[in-house]
Every structure is written in structure tokens, then in C-alpha cells.
């Protein structure tokens, strides 16, 4: 497992061991938010990395967090449409990148976890992911494996018997908070003032991004940084269009099952129809039917396919989907619950190509293939 830290590490002066560190963001990103109850330390980050890559925490011993969040694929499982868990079981959702997830206000496509700590516990016990019955097998390993025993002692000062899932979650989250990546050609052009950092097509594409494409309304940019997400949930016609005629049947049935105690995490990943209910499955809110979290666009060129269900193959097809007003193929019926703001854009072919060029300029150097690094930046 290669660590690709490009961020600046700052050891806070005066902090007693284990040293707490704060993480300054790379070009284009703000400082990483770190919860007060889970300060970052080198020991804890190393421990988290080990946990993240450990295949023993799955029912078959073949799947780790890193299986679907592969460092070599910008922490996704591109080009898979939806993720493969134990025994090649597939879920309903496309693996979102862990890169820059530290900045998100909620985790998972439907935001059903509030933070990285909470998120980290669920895939272990989801039947189509790592397939454990409960978290006990994990605790058994980390309480006996000497490397883990030492790691938890150093990170949390706990004896083996006192290790809990809370510690495991905190360590994984701390590691994930180091997976931040900015410094893309766009960042160097926009925030760094390097006029040659982005191709002419990408520069034109940025104008489309801000104006006719209406992209920036959800994929937001601030004065001194850009997360490319508003951290909100929108029905953009992905997935929900497919089941729109069945919604009056599926939605009440799902809520009834939920009221009877069905686990939302398991239900949405195993049942394709329930999955398309999106944020509604979490909040029961009518105005979130078919809504999913705005994903960041950073490194989007290396994380195909797209949308929560991986249903759109290329960045060009994504732009076409929006250009059609929320349908991938022109003329299809868009669902009744579509979010305000999604409408036909009337972009021409040139604008579509330019917009794709702009998105290709959002790849951070550590996640770009040599070819991409050469073509995305600079004027060729």
C-alpha cells in the first residue's frame, strides 16, 4: 500500500505524546477539519492505514476497505459500475472516492453517516460488502495481533481488552483524513495564478461550468478553495427515472419496512429499487425522494463510471445527461420528483467538449496516470 501524502504535516508545538498534528490543505483545499475528540497522530494514522488494508475483517478474508477504495484508482474501484464485496456479490452503488471525503458534511451517497468515524463501521457488516455478522471478529483480531496491540496502545493508550470499535473507527477516520488531494491543473491556474496550468479548452470549459452549464450551483467553488460539492442532496434523474412508475408502490413499502426495524444500510445496498429512493430512505423527507449527495469533482476523470449507481460511463455522457434536463437518453421521461434547477441546458457540442476538458483538469498529480498528467495540464 503506497501512501501518497502530499499534504503538509504540522506537528503542534507543545503537544505531549502522542503528538497531535494538524493538516494544512494542499493548493485549492482548506485545512482538513479534525473532530476535537479524535485528534490526528502519526501513530493513529499508521494504525488506520493498517486497518483500512486488512482483508481479515471480511467473512471470506478476501475483502478490505482498500478493495473498493484502491489507492491505485484514486481510492475507488474504477471501472466497476457498482462495488464487488465478498464472493463477488455486488451492491447497488458506485464506490465513491475516499480522497477528500474528510471535507464532506456527511458520508455515503445518501448521507446516512454523519462522519468518517460512523461510516467506517458499516461496510464490515453489510452482507454485500465485507459480510461479517457483527464486529466481534474485528475486535478479536485487534486484541490479539501484536502489531495491532502495540498500535492501539500507542494511539489510544488502551490495553488489548479495552479496545472497542470506537477506537477502530477513530483510527480509520484519522487515516482517511490524510487522503486529501488538490493541486490540480485547475488549482494551479485558478488559485495559483499559473496562466499556463490549464489548456485553452479547459479554460473555456470553466466558463461553461460557471455560466451556461449551471454546474457551479451544486459543485461549488469558494474564493480561496473549491470542494466542488454543496454537501446537499439532489434528484438529478439518475436511477430514480428507471423506477419512477413504481415509486408509489416502493416508497410506502420501504417506509413500512423501516418502521418495522429493517436496517437502512443493508436495505439500500441489497435492493436496487430501495436504493433509488436515495436520501428519502434516510430522512423520510418527501422532497428528498431520489436525491443523492453532490459528489466532489476532484479526480473525477480517473473515477469512471459516474452517478451513485455507476450508470453513466463517461464524463461526456454525464454532461449530456444534464444537457438533456436529467435524462441520459434524450426523449426519455424525467421523474416527477426532479430537483428544481435541473432543466435542459442547450449546450452545443463545443461547450460539452470544453466542459469535459475542464473536468479532466481537476486531477491531482498523485492520482493522475503519466499520460493524464501530460495531457491534462499545460498547453500542448
Amino acid at each position: 500500500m503506497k501512501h501518497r501524502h502530499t499534504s503538509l504535516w504540522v506537528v503542534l508545538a507543545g503537544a505531549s505524546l502522542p503528538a497531535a498534528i494538524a493538516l494544512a490543505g494542499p493548493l485549492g483545499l482548506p485545512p482538513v477539519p479534525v473532530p476535537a475528540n479524535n485528534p490526528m497522530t502519526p501513530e493513529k494514522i499508521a494504525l488506520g492505514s493498517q486497518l483500512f488494508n486488512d482483508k481479515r475483517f471480511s467473512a471470506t478474508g478476501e475483502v478490505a476497505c482498500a478493495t473498493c477504495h484502491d489507492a491505485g484508482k484514486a481510492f475507488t474501484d474504477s471501472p466497476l459500475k457498482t462495488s464487488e464485496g465478498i464472493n463477488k456479490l455486488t451492491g447497488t452503488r458506485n464506490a465513491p472516492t475516499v480522497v477528500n471525503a474528510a471535507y464532506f458534511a456527511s458520508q455515503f451517497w445518501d448521507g446516512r453517516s454523519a462522519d468518517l468515524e460512523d461510516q467506517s463501521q458499516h461496510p464490515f457488516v453489510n452482507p454485500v460488502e465485507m459480510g461479517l455478522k457483527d464486529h466481534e471478529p474485528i475486535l478479536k483480531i485487534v486484541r490479539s495481533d501484536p502489531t495491532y496491540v502495540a498500535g492501539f496502545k500507542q494511539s489510544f493508550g488502551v490495553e488489548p481488552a479495552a479496545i472497542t470499535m470506537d477506537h477502530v473507527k477513530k483510527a480509520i477516520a484519522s487515516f482517511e483524513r490524510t487522503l486529501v488531494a488538490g493541486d490540480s491543473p485547475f488549482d494551479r491556474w485558478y488559485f495559483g495564478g499559473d496562466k499556463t496550468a490549464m489548456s485553452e479548452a479547459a479554460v473555456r470549459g470553466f466558463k461553461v461550468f460557471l455560466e451556461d452549464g449551471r454546474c457551479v450551483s451544486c459543485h461549488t467553488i469558494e474564493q480561496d478553495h473549491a470542494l466542488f460539492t454543496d454537501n446537499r442532496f439532489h434528484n438529478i434523474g439518475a436511477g430514480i427515472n428507471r423506477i419512477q412508475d413504481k415509486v408509489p408502490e416502493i416508497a410506502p413499502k420501504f417506509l413500512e419496512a423501516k418502521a418495522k426495524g429493517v436496517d437502512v444500510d443493508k436495505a439500500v445496498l441489497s435492493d436496487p429499487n430501495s436504493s433509488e429512493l436515495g436520501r428519502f430512505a434516510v430522512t423520510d423527507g418527501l422532497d428528498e425522494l431520489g436525491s443523492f449527495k453532490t459528489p466532489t469533482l476532484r479526480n473525477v476523470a480517473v473515477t469512471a463510471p459516474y452517478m451513485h449507481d455507476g450508470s453513466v460511463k463517461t464524463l461526456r455522457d454525464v454532461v449530456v445527461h444534464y444537457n438533456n434536463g436529467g435524462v441520459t437518453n434524450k426523449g426519455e421521461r424525467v421523474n416527477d420528483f426532479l430537483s428544481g434547477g435541473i432543466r435542459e441546458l442547450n449546450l452545443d457540442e463545443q461547450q460539452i467538449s470544453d466542459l469535459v476538458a475542464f473536468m479532466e483538469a481537476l486531477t491531482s498529480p498523485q492520482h493522475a496516470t503519466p499520460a493524464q498528467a501530460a495531457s491534462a495540464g499545460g498547453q500542448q
Partner: protein
Amino acid sequence: MSNHYTRRSFLKTAGTVAAVSTLPVTLVEIAFAKPQDNFTFAYISDSHIQHIRAGKFVNNWDRGLIRAVAETNLMTPKPDFVMFGGDLAQLGTKAELDHGAGMLAKLNAPLKTVMGEHDYYLDLGEYWSKLFGPQYYSFDHKGVHFVVLNSILTHDEWTFNRWPTAEQRMNEMAGLDNPNGSPFMVGEKQRDWLAKDLAKVAKDTPVVVFSHSPIQKIYKGWNFWTDDAEQVQALLKPFDKANVVYGHVHQIQYNQIGNIAFNSVMATAWPWPYPSTYAQAETYLPKLTIPMNRADPFFERDATGWQMINVNTGRVDLAYNLYNNRSRTVAFDHKRGHPADTQFQDVALEPNRAHY
């Protein structure tokens, strides 16, 4: 309507009201409310379907009505009926009314409709009546007497003698702060009808009046106003529980005048703020608990919505389904003796200045 109505046993089921008023509109809430005698109805209003040219309509207004209809159809159990509160069309044309009627036809519950000024002033309601029937009427449902009024009429001289074309008449009435406009009124003919209609109703029967304009005087320049409001109110005065639900204002308002509780409903098209020239007088004006933020210009559904209503206590309780905003419930507060926002009544919130 020859028989007298009796108060319903559901007036005793106060527990249900509490459940409704503490939760936002969700399917769970509706699905798990005690079924017995209660009923709900949905209220969709002010869609302002606007024709641009052959086959083209304003997308934003279309989407608002389409979405409200689709969401209403998800309610379990189904609402007993759906009210449409007026201003289906923007300029009263056949194309607009047909397009809107087509969307409303997808409702899976019976539809009842109220006349709005945007539906009326092109052909004086002729085509609207072909589609939807009478412009004022009453009906009884599960122990409640419902009355629908056409409250957007005005002086005959203005309607019949002033304008060279029907189109100009429509446009003049559609304007805000327009000195050429004219105040709305129910009129003598309907008031006479109403007096006779209500004479047959027992005074302890809950009465719910649906009108497009408020049957109270709020702000004349925007026709948040009915000129003969006091005379209509006088007809409602003998009833223990009289309620008026109105559209037109595109915002949440509520008020109490004597025994009459007033509630407004949201628009599916766009929100109005309070008129900038509006000055809150001491009495007879709706409570403005939290000033509404201006709609987000990108998220077109922001600050629009529709509502589920119950009359379980003989008073009107409205659960507002609001997009991009927290859902709100305005229910009759029996201790205070007037409608109250179940969450925000006593919370003084500063408006979000970032939006202004």
C-alpha cells in the same frame, strides 16, 4: 344539505392531532396515524401554468405542479380529496387551463377546485367552468360542511365596461400595485347564496370555507384583500368553528378574527414575500412569525410547497410540505384560541440577511 350535521366522534381524538403537529409531512406520519374517523385532504394551489408559444410552457411552473401531484399520490392512506386553490393558469387561456388540467388529472383522489383571478379574467371563467364545474358550491364530508367561494369577482363596471379587450382586462388584474386594478369581492349574489346555504347547517358543525383571496383585509395593492370580507365574516359568525383557507398569497399566513380561523396555503409556482409597502397594523392581520427567505434562484422549488390538512378537531390543521426548507405545521391551538405554528410560534427568528 337538508339535514343537520352532527359533531363527529373524531373531535375527541386529540392525541392524533398532537402526533400530526409535531412531525413533518412524511409517509410514515400519515401511514401510522390512527385511522378510525380521521380524514385528510391535500391542498395544492397557485401553479400559474404559463403558455409561452405553441406547445411550450414555463418549465419551472410545470415542475411545481407535477411534483405536488406526484407527492400527493404517495400519501398513504390516500387523502379523501384534493383541493386546488386557484390560479391554475397565468393568463386564463385554454392552452394553460388544458395543460394544468392534464397534470391534475393524474391525481388519484377526487379533485375539487377554487377559481383564481388568473383563471377568470380572460373569459370570465367560461372555459374553467367547462373543465371544473360550478364556481361556488358547498359539500359535506364526514361531518364537516365545506364551502367553496369565488372571491375574486369585482365591480361590474370594471369587469364589463372598462377594457377594450379581454386580454387587457386579464393583464390589468394580474398586475401588482396596479392603479388600474380593482379590489376582489365575493359579491351580493354569492353572499345571498351563502346565507341560505349556511342556514341549513347546525351551528356546532365545523364549517370550512375555501376561497382564492383571503376573506380578510391584509394588503389592497396586491389584492391580499376581499372588499366585502366583513359581510362574509358576519355570515360565519354564528358558527362555533368557522375556518377559512385561502391561496393567492404564496406564503404561510394565519390569523384569528373572532370565531373564524384563517389559514393560507403555499403556491407550487413561486413564493411572495410580504409586500414591501406592507405595514403591520395592530389588529386583523395575519401573524408573521418568520419572514420567508427569498427563493434560491437556482433551486426553483425553494420556498414553494403544498399541504396536507385535517379537520380532526373541527379546526383546520395544516402540515406544509416545503422544499429546501424545514416542513412546518400550523395547527389550531385550542388553549390560545387561534392557529399557531407548532414549532416557531414563540421563537423570534431573525431573517437570514445573507439572502437579502
